[in-house]
Structure formats: structure tokens, C-alpha cells
């Protein structure tokens, strides 16, 4: 399993996916893997679609992005190398770096930048695999998560699906032995 820090910082698409696919999984993540943070800069975005109180009740914690972090994010964003990212993406990156969180994102460009800053990164489905590995969810629930997610997210290509299923089965086998 990949390197990860025991606190997770989620991007807006991942939060949206979880709320659409399996909301109850949040409390399980916090119990099994660690705190689940949402950077304050994406809260307004989420509010357009979801009830913020509900989000907090489910176990998400809002991580305030300081002026210093915003400043640092702008410095990153204004570099030509990071043209694929926005100010908010860079704020996520800086916050994950400053708070030693793992950044959970399916955005390849953000993942690449995280690696440049030595920030641990996880795909959304890796979190699901980790939960299953640590007995947070059942095999069937993990399978259901994938099944629902691939119907609403372009990130879940047939290759990603296949890799997830292979890894899920490997963990299952390991558990059985």
C-alpha cells in the first residue's frame, strides 16, 4: 500500500463523489484512516450543491486556508509549470503540505504537483481499498462503491475499474490466507 498520512484532505470532486455514492463511508474513514478535511476555499463551491451542515455532521472538518497559505498558493500557481492548476488547487496542495495531510484527488495534474512538493497523494478508490484492507467496509460495499462511482465519474475508466477489482481481490486473498 502507498505512503499516506493519517489525515486526508479531499478535493471538491472527491467530496461530491462520496456524497453521491456512499455518504456513510465518511464516518468509517475517520474511524479507520484518520480525520477527513475539506479546505475552506472549496466550501462555497460545495454549498451550491449540498447542505454544509450535513457535510459537517457526516464527519468532514473544514480546514481554514490562511492568508499565508493563499500567498504561497499564488506563488505556485503563477509558475508556468503549474498552469494546469488553479489557485484553489494550489491552496489544497499547500494546506496538505503544511498540515501533513494526504491529498485525495483523482486529478492527475494535481497529483503530479503534490509529488513535486512531497505531499502524499491518494486516488479516491485507494481510500476505498485501504478501508477494506483495514476491515472498515465489506468486500461487497467496496464493489458497490466502484459500481456507482463509474456511473458518475469520468475518472473511472475501464482500466481504473479493472485495476481496482484486481487489487480488491488481492487484498481479499491475503485476508483469507
Amino acid at each position, binding site marked *: 500500500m502507498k505512503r499516506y498520512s493519517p489525515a486526508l484532505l479531499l478535493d471538491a*470532486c472527491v467530496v461530491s463523489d462520496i456524497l453521491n455514492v456512499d455518504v456513510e463511508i465518511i464516518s468509517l474513514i475517520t474511524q479507520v484512516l484518520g480525520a477527513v478535511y475539506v479546505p475552506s476555499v472549496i466550501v462555497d*463551491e460545495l454549498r451550491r450543491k449540498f447542505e454544509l451542515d450535513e457535510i459537517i455532521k457526516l464527519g468532514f472538518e473544514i480546514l481554514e486556508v490562511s492568508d499565508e497559505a*493563499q*500567498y504561497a498558493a499564488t506563488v505556485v500557481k503563477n509558475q508556468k509549470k503549474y498552469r494546469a492548476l488553479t*489557485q484553489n*488547487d494550489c491552496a489544497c496542495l499547500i494546506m496538505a503540505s503544511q498540515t501533513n495531510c494526504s491529498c485525495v484527488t483523482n*486529478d492527475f*495534474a494535481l497529483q503530479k504537483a503534490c509529488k513535486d512538493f512531497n505531499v502524499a497523494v491518494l486516488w479516491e478508490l485507494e481510500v476505498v481499498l485501504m478501508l477494506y484492507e483495514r476491515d472498515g467496509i465489506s468486500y461487497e460495499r467496496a464493489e458497490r462503491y466502484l459500481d456507482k462511482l463509474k456511473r458518475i465519474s*469520468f475518472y473511472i475508466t475501464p482500466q481504473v475499474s479493472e485495476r481496482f477489482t484486481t487489487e480488491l481481490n488481492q487484498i481479499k486473498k491475503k485476508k483469507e490466507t
Partner: protein
Amino acid sequence: MIQTVAVNLKRFRAEQGLTQPELAKKSGVSISSVKTLETCKATNPSAKTLGALARALNRTIGDLLTEPLRLERIRFRAKASFAQYRRINVVNLCARWLDDYCYLEDVLGVASFFKPLPPFNVANDDLGEYANEVRKALEIQPDAPIYDVADVLRKRSVKLWYCPQRPADAVYGLAIQESPQATGVVVFNDGKISTERVIFTTVHEFAHLLLHEDSFKSEITQESKTEERQADAFASYFLMPKKLFLQQWEASVGGRFVERVLRVKRFFRVSYLTVLHRLVEEKLVDPNVYVKFPIAYRETTGESLRNHREPNALSPFDVPTDRFQRLACEAALAGKITVDRAAEMLSVPTLQAYELINQAGGIV
């Protein structure tokens, strides 16, 4: 960096209509700090100061620290004079779009460069003939109306943006010819102007690229009546070639005058005023038709044409799609940019962009 902050501070303050003392009060930053920042006399300001100023100006620290982009070869003219900060904002907005467009093309490996068309023979001065030449060069059938102006521009690699905001009432579009790759037309379509106007403006700005290459200078801000008239004439003939117009007008004989105008305008996807102008130009009707038509229209339909209402109008869904949105979605699908970056480019909320990209990727 300090110069960027100074420029931005001044323009955002002007945008909000705040004086220096008012900004100081609203932000809690001392008035002397505001002054020294605006005159580049300050050393690097702290993040805390920038944050306070940004919040007071309804902006972000990123906005304060990011230099507004400029364009040298832009044709942005307006009848009304524009406040300097508003001009900088419009140019910055369009420059960012064009820069993003070229970036998307580059990361997707589909860079395109403006393909010039036959030059206009000024001595001849027949814009009708020139419009026909251009139509021919673009392989548009002489007896066909133009259904997709975006496609016409695409054929010559002219980038097109239907910008969802309008900087001022009297501004409809502008054209840019910064480099062969950075050649484009921006039409400000806030949804309050008719689709016919959007189409006409697209061709009008395209006409400037073809006819007035020498007038692409950012320092010229006043409209040139001659150039505007030429661009209008080109757009009219391009969308409604003389011969085809006369055929269509003839074919409508038998209907009432109002019905004939509405039928012809719908065929060519132009406004009723464009049709009336042509009828006057061809001496097929008297110039007082501009007064008579609204009355006749009211008598026929019981409806008024006040407030720039377009009769028998095209729907907003008839506005052609520009290629920019597609490229942004493709870049996100290919992992070249983040969903949030696509959202920023398309001026939509992140989760709306996520939905758009999902749909572009076949998830409905």
C-alpha cells in the same frame, strides 16, 4: 511583485468605487500603507495585509498578486469612453482566454494558426464582391445560408469565444491578432442580446481581421465610423449574399410585407433590421420602412418591437458552440488540467464543470 500589487490595487479600488481612506477603513489597513502600496513605495507587503485588502475589495490574494495580461494587437473600440481600469479588465479577461486557448491547443497537440484569406482590394471597394470571394475561399455554397459561423471561423483557425459577461452596454465584441496562433474573436454574449446579433457580431469582428489588419493597435480606443461601416457591410453580404437575398425576397412574393421580412430574416439567421437595411439599400422599399415596419408588425401580430425585441427570433440554443469549451473538457479528460482549472476557463462552478466533463466523456 510590488508593481503588480500597485496596479491591481488601484484598478480593484476603482472598480469598487472606493477612495484610499475608504479602502483603508474597510480593510483595517492603515491609509499610509494603502498609499505606499499604490505608489510602489512599500517593501513586500505581508500576506496578512494582502488578505485584508483582498477581502475588502471582494478579491483574492491571488488576484492581487497576478499581473494583468496585456495585448498589443487588439482591436477594442467603443463609442463611449471607458474608464482605464475597465479597459484593463476587459483586455486582461480576453488575453487570459486566448492564452488559455493556446495552452489547451498546445497540451493537446492541436495547435492551429490563422490562415489568411485573399486581401480586400480597397480600390475596388465592393464589399459585396469581397464577401462572395471569402465565401468561395471558405467553400460555402453560393446558394446556402450560413448555419454555423463558429465553423466558418474554425476553418481559418480564428479562435472564438462567446464570453458570458458584457463589459458595457454598447460593447458587443472585439478582435485580436497577437500572433498567428493567438488570433481570435470575442463576442460578449450575456444572454441579453439576440442570437441574430451574436451571429452578426461574430462576422463583423471576423471582418475586421480581414479588412483592417493595420488597425489592430491597443492604444487606439475610439471607433472609426468608416471601418465599422465596412465591417457591417461585409457581415451583411457574407451572411446574406446579394444574389441569394434577391432570390429569397422574390420567392416570398405573395405574403404580407411583415411576413416576407420575417421569412427572409429567419432563412439567413439575421435580424429584421439587417433585412430592412438591405431592402433600403437595394431600393426595394422606402427608407421610412424603419418607422412603418414596427407599426405593421404590431398590426399583424399584436406585439410590440420595443426594447430591441427581435421578432421571429432564433433561440439562445442557436448560438453556435465555440471550440474552447470542448478543448477544456478534452484537456480535463486527458488529465492535462484539473477539473477546477477547466471550471475557471469556462467561468462555471467546479461541480458544474465536473458534470460537463463527465458528459463530454460519455457519462450522462
